[in-house]
């Protein structure tokens, strides 16, 4: 709140704006719009540095342009691909083979993204937020300057400044040819033509989601991962996710890491990798190689050192306190650029809004980063909230937690004769007293839609008996959560159905 006071002190006509937000992504725009609601003078700077492959996009940040939105739409396309197969079992005769045209899908997705870019522009205008399409750099603690496309210098001064420039995919620069021939998620959604046979390198959710939908629309797709999939997520669930992808047709090169990428005469990319288990070197050629080896903030050009904003030297991310304040009182940061925060759109949005409320509306409410639900949109979706089983064991000891679980079969899978081996639910509870729920993990269709409400329940402190007291909705997948009765401890078979 000190920052707040300082901000008001400075507002003596000296600075042009009450608030300047650097970065027009989910967090930045949410913060700017919220501040404008309180009648403040607000500006947003946004600039998209083209990807190494030259891809660029409009206002809205990662989520809108190269993240959640295009990803979910392409995931929907892949689900429709699976639905086409299911449809035959439901009496629909569809002449085979069914072709998928990338350009049609991509065009649809890109048009939607562009409409969202436009929507953001309109909203900023409506809310009288000044928009600068420039790449900002601090010149003093209250001044940010940058060049427009026409090389015109722009200087903006503000009482409060919020940094929300997010992150970008990393390239494994130690791999020869990586930068030259590889693409990242920044490029994938903007490809005009099908990526064809694709190698996706990485074990992150970005990697698995992209590989999942590429497989789903019929492309020959391989995931190469050096270590465990979905690090940080419950590992039993993570294994089920990749297991399902394998049965779905995604190929996996486990315990492998690339060493070089070369372009063949045929224009195909030849990738060489090491297999850590066999200690062998292997190669194969692909049409596309996509890196999904993590994301990193782009803070260098912000000139943070000059104004004294501290960053984590390892991650490059900005260090913030519970009120999103940086080491400089009137400078804040939200979203992916902040150290130790989840890299998720909804948390960035909520943090940005709450920050604006604290700055301009006498609120003291802090963002609560506990029990953040999330969903991995792999072909079989994985939704979760709260602690993983490992984290619960670590925090409370295995004697003090009770894990209820079930392997269930979604009704939509039965007629379609789909394998439901990986449809699994796990609820991690405290064992003592009222059995408060620590974490819930759900793999199955519509996991994102299913888990949201339960996340609310868990946020309200739901206990196992409360969960069981709720009458199920029949026949849905979500009802299985309210029917969990088998504990892991019992060793009993957790399969819900036998047919």
């Amino acid at each position: 709140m000190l920052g707040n006071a300082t901000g008001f002190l400075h507002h003596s006509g000296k600075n042009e704006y009450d608030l300047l937000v650097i970065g027009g992504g989910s967090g930045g725009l949410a913060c700017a719009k919220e501040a404008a609601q309180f009648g403040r003078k607000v500006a947003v700077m946004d600039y998209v540095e083209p990807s190494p492959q030259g891809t660029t996009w409009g206002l809205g940040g990662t989520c809108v342009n190269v993240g959640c939105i295009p990803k979910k739409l392409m995931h929907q396309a892949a689900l429709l691909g699976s639905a086409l197969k299911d449809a035959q079992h439901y009496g629909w005769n569809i002449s085979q083979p069914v072709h998928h045209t990338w350009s049609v899908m991509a065009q649809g997705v890109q048009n939607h993204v562009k409409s969202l870019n436009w929507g953001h522009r309109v909203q900023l205008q409506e809310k009288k937020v000044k928009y600068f399409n420039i790449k900002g750099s601090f010149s003093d603690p209250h001044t940010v300057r940058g060049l427009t496309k026409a090389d015109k210098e722009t200087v903006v001064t503000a009482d409060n400044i919020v940094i929300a420039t997010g992150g970008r995919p990393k390239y494994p620069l130690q791999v020869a040819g990586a930068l030259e021939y590889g693409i990242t998620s920044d490029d994938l959604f903007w490809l005009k033509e099908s990526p064809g046979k694709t190698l996706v390198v990485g074990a992150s959710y970005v990697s698995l989601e992209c590989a999942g939908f590429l497989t789903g629309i019929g492309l020959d797709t391989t995931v190469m991962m050096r270590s465990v999939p979905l690090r940080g997520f419950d590992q039993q669930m993570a294994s089920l996710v990749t297991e399902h992808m394998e049965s779905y047709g995604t190929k996996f090169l486990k315990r492998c890491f690339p060493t070089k990428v070369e372009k063949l005469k045929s224009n195909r990319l030849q990738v060489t990798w090491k297999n850590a288990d066999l200690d062998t070197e292997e190669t194969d050629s692909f049409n596309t190689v996509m890196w999904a080896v993590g994301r990193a903030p782009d803070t260098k050009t912000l000139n943070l050192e000059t104004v004294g904003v501290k960053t984590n030297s390892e991650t490059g991310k900005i260090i913030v306190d519970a009120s999103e304040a940086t080491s400089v009182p009137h400078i804040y940061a939200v979203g992916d650029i902040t150290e130790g925060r989840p890299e998720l759109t909804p948390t960035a949005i909520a943090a940005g809004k709450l920050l604006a409320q604290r700055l301009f509306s006498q609120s003291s409410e802090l963002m609560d980063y506990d029990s953040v639900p999330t969903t991995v949109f792999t072909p079989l979706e994985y939704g979760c909230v709260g602690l993983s089983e490992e984290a619960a064991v670590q925090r409370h000891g295995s004697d003090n937690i009770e894990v209820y679980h079930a392997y269930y079969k979604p009704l939509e899978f039965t007629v379609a004769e789909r394998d439901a081996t990986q449809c699994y639910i796990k609820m991690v509870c405290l064992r003592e007293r009222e059995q408060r729920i620590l974490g819930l993990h759900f793999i199955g269709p519509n996991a994102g839609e299913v888990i949201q409400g339960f996340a609310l329940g868990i946020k309200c402190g739901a206990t196992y008996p409360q969960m069981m007291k709720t009458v199920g909705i029949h026949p849905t997948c979500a009802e299985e959560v309210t029917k969990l009765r088998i504990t892991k401890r019992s060793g009993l078979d957790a399969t819900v159905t036998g047919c």
Partner: protein
Amino acid sequence: MALENALWRRRVSDHPFFFSAASSLTQHLVVESLMLPVAPQTTSYKPLPTFVEGSTPGILKEQQYLHVSVRNQGSSQLKSPSWTKMCHTEDEEHLAQLETEFLPTLSLSHAHQPESQFACCICSHCFPSGLFREEKVNVGCVPKKVMWNTAVHAEFVHDHADYGFETSGVKFNWRTIKEKRDAYVRRLNDIYESNVKKARIDIIRGYGKFTADPQPTVEVDGKKYTAPHILIATGGRPAVPSDSEVPGASLGMTSDGFFDLEELPRRSVIVGAGYIAVEIAGILSTLGSKSSLLIRHDQVLRTFDSLISSNCTQELENTGVDVWKHTQVKRVSKSSCGLLDVTVTSAVPGHKPTEGVIRDVDCLLWAVGRQPNSEGLCLDRVGVQVDPQGHVVVDEYQNTTRKGIYAVGDVCGKALLTPVAIAAGRKLAHRLFEGKQDSRLDYENIPTVVFSHPPIGTVGLTEEEAVAIHGKDNVKTYNTSFIPLYHAVTQRKVKCVMKLVCTGKEEKVVGLHMQGLGCDEILQGFAVAIKMGATKADLDNTVAIHPTSAEELVTLR
């Protein structure tokens, strides 16, 4: 140990005896079976001397009855004399319970007390559809949802091209899905039956009715059975107007008949505004049958929140259902080619009633309500009271007006839903045999889904109900209407509407009503939170999952 024995002996007399019916489209009734320990050499129930009687209750004569009774008198060994378990028979539910809970416990229990044995019985009283193989295939929520899923594929067909898939000449074959569906349901039935057998449950097939004996007694095919606990769970069946009310009404079918259709009807007329009518009209129309829905007023689902009834009526019209408002069937006649001509009267308020004829109808389906299956049971002989509609009157603990006789499920006429019946049965079992005096089902905040197109999810009070209870000034609603992301790239746009009903200063959420893609799966978790007493602030404090439709509920402003 002495106390335990005493307890045990007391329970020995607690042999349950249940009536139960199979499911049908609305009501998905459940066979609940209770198991409890019985002292050695004690039989759980005893067939009494029989007398043959040939009469069957007139109104039920066309229907098959099924009685199931369960009995186990081996050298079973029980873990604890008060041990009691229950299983139920409704599709996957049954599997879940029997296989994962019941059977393991059963075998576990056997290891402990070599001298005990147990007995249990269910009596299933089965209407047109049966739970077991010999009967007709079930007509409940599972086959219904299979048909809904089938129809959802029809919607996808419109979207394929927008998502880049080149499909052409897509044709639908009703027979394929009917065979698949029937085979699936048969498979489930087989499993139930085999599980029931595995659980050593005796099945008694036949009509059941109470006798005038001093102790509550049920007679099946001349044999008499009695038990200290008798549960009536015979469910209900679709109502059809009599031919004297509507000449030719009997030429139509009910929801049960829907599942017998061998071909997709070319021309369908569905009468009714309830959720069965809405679901069937949606399925038939989406699959390509030209469908008319005849409703008495101007909206469907009139007991739902006004947002839902108006939106659903609109969506039915959007998807091509021809909704005839203020309309009732006057008469039905068979034309020379074997098809039906349905004569209707439409009486829009303020206008002169008009008459019209819908010709060449090959599927006339009545979905005008349901009747409890209580008439043939001779309930008057045991003093079990029924209401004017024939529903068995029960208190909140499922007790009927006669001690030792209980009722759960649709026969009681309250919240006609499978999980409600299951839960009520389960609670009753815990109360009767596990000593949980207060075990009863809380009928508040029961979440319900209607598999319309798009699906509806609803829990708690409607806005209208909340205003009536809490007063207009104490009710605040939050509404949203949006196009789900799925439709961002499709030409077909179906919106999603949501309403949160809150009361008081703390804005406690007392109702949630929504219709849109995914609302069927969204509702369950929110129902947990609403039952827990969640407030609007709790919703606001929950982080969204992006991009989903569900996140709209935690970002309402």
